[in-house]
């Protein structure tokens, strides 16, 4: 068939083969290879995370073993006792302070507001103040010269005086002007209680202070009034009791602190010796190699001296820990003193009913909670101390548990690093739950509205708008939360309208609530779109049947349509949850960065994604910290993948 039409665009004159594969096969395999990349990448990510994370547990176990051998673990048991009582003491102090703040009211912050206003006013009138100083100087110069030099006429002096008067007036005017623009909205800390009653007087006082440099009478009055009120509050019987309790708690602490600190110094010296010894083997190897490669005799000698200077005597931990074992007997006295102090203190804690401040009441409740468990806690630590042995093996299972159930994430510490992932997981999950709780009503409600109840015109406007929300980059939302929303929440949460909410008023700018609100907005488009799809997929006959049975429109939606696409809605919510858990920038900037298990939704916290973004750039490859971060990455990856997998499964099931 040589006479095939050559004008046919598909005419193929040549065909060839490589390794038995035709061109068509090759093209197919090339495409297939690209598609298989997806598999390669996901398995690559898993392998990579696992590979980098595997070194973590053995290394961590070694570190923790040294932590035990050196006796640091034991002194931490002492410290745990100490810290618990310190916590009680500081709770008492805080409770008194907050109660004072509440009872004194707006007066409490007047002097603070005064100094903030003053610094702002001073700043705005820099030029005028300098001018004033200059004219004052030139006048003084003239006057002092005039005594010796007769050529200076009184006219010149009068002129200078007039100028001085003018500049004074200008300064006053400028300060007045800038003060009139200042109000409580300009304060840095929006949580301060303020009252319009004082605003005018504060402004006047600032003006008086700047122009005359005297302490204004108003501020003197305020200070006196404050002292008087504070003294009155101090005289209240329950505050007296609380203060007495505080004194009781703090009584044995200084002596115990000195006792512990001595032991801690010993333990940390032990640890330093252990670390030095562990390192020296590597250093010797490196130096020996350098010696072999050295060119000059001098260089070789130098390396030789370095090698001989390495510590080769293994530390004798039994001997090093002797002082710690001796301390157990001495600690008995401190232990008993703590117990008596705590019992004394507890008996003095007043009832919450007379406290006016919500925060104080909350703090007292915390004290009560600690009170109920502190004596057993102290005794438990004492038993642990008595049974402590430096040579007991630190098992692998305990190391693994220490990571997954540890409540401390401490890095770059001179004492001991701990990698416990619990605060990070709770932070991540807590903020995601808050966000989902906020997002679900709006996005599901919105989907129902747009899909079933709204008009056509509304639909064509709302749907693209929500797509636009999806396009907002996360860093923009994070920025908004960091600069604007934090201050807004802090300010408006002070209002009485929200006081019934748990955790309100909000003390910090960057909290779970703040991040949760932003993440909710981020989750809305995902949930909304998927929900709408699910609603769309409900057959029309369901609606018709329901309406025909006499159900109203609303009844149809809530009783027929929603149940029939429930699995789709659940999958949508789960997918939204997955997206939020993996979100980085918002939690990095807005969550507050406090590594502790959050107690309420208005506390700052930290998250897994946040810690990765914050720390991975600063650690050495292959170090313990590096391994710990990759472990966190692995945990995060598993959580996100698990949620994703489940929701996809649900989605798949329901579309069938």
């Amino acid at each position, binding site marked *: 068939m040589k006479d095939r039409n050559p004008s*046919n665009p598909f005419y193929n004159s040549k065909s060839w083969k490589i390794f038995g594969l035709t061109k068509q096969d090759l093209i197919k395999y090339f495409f297939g290879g690209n598609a298989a990349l997806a598999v390669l990448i996901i398995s690559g990510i898993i392998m990579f995370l696992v590979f980098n994370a595997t070194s973590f547990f053995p290394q961590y176990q070694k570190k923790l073993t040294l932590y035990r051998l050196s006796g640091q673990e034991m002194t931490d048991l002492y410290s745990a006792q100490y810290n618990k009582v310190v916590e009680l003491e500081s709770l008492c102090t805080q409770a008194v302070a907050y109660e004072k703040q509440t009872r004194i009211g707006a007066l409490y912050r007047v002097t603070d507001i005064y100094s903030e206003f003053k610094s702002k006013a001073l700043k705005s009138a820099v030029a005028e103040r300098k001018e004033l100083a200059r004219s004052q100087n030139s006048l003084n110069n003239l006057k002092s010269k005039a005594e010796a030099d007769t050529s200076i006429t009184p006219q010149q002096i009068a002129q200078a005086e007039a100028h001085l008067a003018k500049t004074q007036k200008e300064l006053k005017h400028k300060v007045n002007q800038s003060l009139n623009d200042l109000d409580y909205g300009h304060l840095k800390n929006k949580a301060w209680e303020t009252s319009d009653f004082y605003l005018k007087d504060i402004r006047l006082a600032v003006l008086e202070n700047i122009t005359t440099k005297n302490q204004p009478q108003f501020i003197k009055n305020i200070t006196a009034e404050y002292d008087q009120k504070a003294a009155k509050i101090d005289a209240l019987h329950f505050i007296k009791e609380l203060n007495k309790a505080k004194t009781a708690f703090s009584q044995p602490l200084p002596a115990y602190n000195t006792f512990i600190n001595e032991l801690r110094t010993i333990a940390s010296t032990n640890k330093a*010796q252990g670390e030095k010894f562990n390192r020296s083997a590597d250093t010797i190897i490196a130096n020996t190699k350098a010696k072999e490669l050295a060119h000059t005799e001098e260089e070789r000698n130098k390396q030789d001296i370095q090698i001989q200077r390495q510590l080769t005597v293994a530390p004798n931990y039994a001997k090093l820990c002797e002082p710690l074992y001796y301390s157990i007997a001495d600690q008995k006295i401190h232990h008993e003193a703590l117990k008596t102090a705590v019992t004394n203190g507890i008996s003095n804690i007043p009832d919450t009913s007379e406290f006016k401040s919500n925060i104080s009441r909350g703090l007292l409740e915390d004290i009560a909670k600690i009170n109920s468990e502190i004596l057993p806690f102290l005794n438990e630590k004492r038993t642990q101390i008595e049974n402590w042995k430096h040579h007991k093996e630190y098992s692998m299972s305990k190391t693994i548990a220490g990571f997954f159930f540890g409540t401390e994430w401490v890095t770059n510490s001179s004492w001991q690093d701990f990698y416990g992932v619990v605060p990070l997981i709770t932070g991540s999950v807590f903020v995601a739950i808050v966000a989902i709780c906020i997002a679900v009503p709006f996005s599901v409600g919105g989907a129902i509205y747009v899909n079933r*109840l709204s008009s056509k015109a509304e639909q064509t406007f709302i749907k693209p708008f929500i797509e636009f929300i999806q396009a907002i980059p996360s860093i923009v939302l994070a920025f908004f939360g960091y600069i604007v929303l934090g201050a807004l929440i802090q300010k408006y949460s002070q209002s009485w309208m929200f006081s019934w909410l748990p955790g309100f008023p909000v003390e910090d700018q960057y909290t779970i609530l703040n991040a949760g609100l932003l993440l909710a907005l981020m989750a809305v488009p995902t949930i909304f779109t998927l929900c709408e799809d699910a609603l769309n997929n409900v057959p029309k006959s369901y609606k018709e049947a329901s309406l025909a049975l006499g159900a109203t429109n*609303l009844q149809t939606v809530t009783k027929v349509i929603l149940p029939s696409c429930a699995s789709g809605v659940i999958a949508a919510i789960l997918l939204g949850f997955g997206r939020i858990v993996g979100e980085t920038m918002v939690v990095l900037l807005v969550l507050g960065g406090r590594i502790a298990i959050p107690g309420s939704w208005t506390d700052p916290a930290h998250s897994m994604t946040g810690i990765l973004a914050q720390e991975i750039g600063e650690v050495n490859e292959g170090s313990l910290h590096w391994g710990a971060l990759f472990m966190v*990455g692995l945990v995060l990856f598993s959580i996100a993948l698990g949620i994703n997998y489940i929701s996809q499964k649900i989605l798949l099931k329901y579309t069938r």
Partner: protein
Amino acid sequence: MSDNPFKSKKSNLRTKEKFAYGGYAFATYFIIICATFIFGTILWNGVPVLMDKGLSFLSHKPQTLSVLELEKGTGYEVPTEHFDNMLISNPNELPLENLEEFQKSFQLVSFQIKNGSLIGDDYLKDIEKDNKQYYVRFTERKFPTLVGFTVHRDKKIRISKPELEIIQKHDPQLITSEITEKIVTLQNKKVTIKAGEYPLSKDAHDSLQKTELIFQMKQSYPDDEPNKINITIIPKDQTITLPSSIFYAAFDEDEKGTLPATKVESIPYEKIFTDFSLTKGNYQTSSETLKILNQYGIKHLHNAEKGAVVINNKDEINITLHQEKYDQLVAHNPQLKLSHIEQSQQQIQYTRFDIAKDVEVQLNFSDLLAFKQDSKFKPTSEKTHSYSGGGVLGPIIGTACLVIICMAIALFTGIAAATYLNEYAKKGGLTKIIRLAMLNLAGVPSIVFGLFGFGLFVMLAPVFSQTPNTGSKLNIPIVFIDSKPDLRIIEAEGIHIVDSKLSTSESEELANAAGAKKFHNGWYYISFQGWGVCMLAGGFTLAIMVLPVIITSCEESLKAVPMSFREAAMALGATKWQSIRTAVLPYAFPGILTASVLGITRVAGETAPIMFTAAVAEKSDLPWQGIHTSGFSAFVDFLQQSVQALPYHIYTVAGRIPQSEYTQPMQYGSVLIFMIIVFMLSAVSIYLRIKIRNKIKW
């Protein structure tokens, strides 16, 4: 009739219905209100910034902003260009008076440097700073027989006798002043110390480091406790000789934490010092003399230790310098051979102005430098705010580069994968696994992609290099090329040159021992050392992240092409590939375009994946500036550099620098620009989708 079951007393169904309806409507509009509030805040604060700064916000790089307090004064003179910049960067009206523009002329000299000339290091750098097109990849250094330097003030110098003799031998005419000699008696100490354990302070420890004493520290000294006294072990009895200064630091009996010496013996010796003075003026001396004088505070721009650079430029490039700089260059480098010397004049537009009142002025760093040329310009205080001045040119370009690289990779792979899945794949094991992988890939958090990209591309990916890193995971030699890198690169990057007979591992160890980061032994390597923080790594990371999105949407658009197209092509005798190429892909193209715009929107907004793979906060050059190689290696160098990126820039100015009112314009300005870009992209994708949906109906 109260027992009628169908009778309800009161039907509140209608009100209930209305309430529920209102509730749903509220939910919907609340979302919209919230989003509008956010847009509104950013617009409200951002638009005034853009109005103030105008186009300069887009055409300037981010800079440090200085806030200065200026006292009132007259006759400030600055170039008009920088004066205009000052007006732009100050949102408030400045109290300026008596503005006057005038021309100021400068003497310039243009010339060429002949090959083989010798020039001091920093003189060369000075020339290169003023003439960006001039760059010398020198391969050789020489000690010149004559070097010049200027002594600005009469200077007294004390050097040792042997040093003086060297100077007198090489430059007998240099020292004209009187030379006085002084004999000083110094002591060495011979110390014996017994074996044992002793407490040792950090100061004593540091001074003992230089001696030959063998001691073993039980602990190292922590940085935060400089006064700590640690225990040291002296393993055997030793006798050492040391200078008295070290002796008093380490063996002083009155001090705490010093070692007890059992036997001390003094060995006195004499040293002769000589004093002379140099009067101010220009000098020309030999390199040896300069080497000695260099240690005694003579200021110059030569490299006294390594010698001068030998110029070896292939092209003839004109260099322009200011007259004073030119004079200094010629005076200090006697072995510099110049040609084509031409004098010229340069006119620069200047503005003269008075400041009527004490005022606070905000200036960008580059403008501040120009202002400081004016001797009258003396700010009473100066505070700096990093990244808060200038504009966002660098970040925008960086983001564009990242997006282009990412989309090139993602589209190539994505379209191929989608074609396979839609045209070739049969339902079966492999396809199922691929789809599962894609589904899961879509759910991976972006920070995990960042982690993956950091570990793989930044730390592990292979590069071809003549000078591999010593810390590389694996170095595989490929081919022996007997060519050294240029001396300039060797010096700049600290490359350790090793004998070519040595094996890879030996070379690595040798370089490591020398403290070098890179080595060269003549072989060309594949080195698994990673690409470093660079555009390529960031582009790959973003591409991996966006791949599922691209594949899914490309597949959708392929699916939309009717089956009959393929059948028709096949019926005409086309092969499978021909039918795909001619009958399927062209018709899927609009859909693929939409997919790519969607992908770009997603990629441009991401911060977490580029945080440690590509982005840096500070970079003074645009990506194409500062590359001195040519051809393919220039392209590689271009890809292997870190960039600024808009989202990362926002993160930096919002979260990593202290907040103040001066940083706020930059924050809102860059956020607004970013939002505008992202929204334009997403509007384009929405528009394209609607258009395609309406237009193409098979």
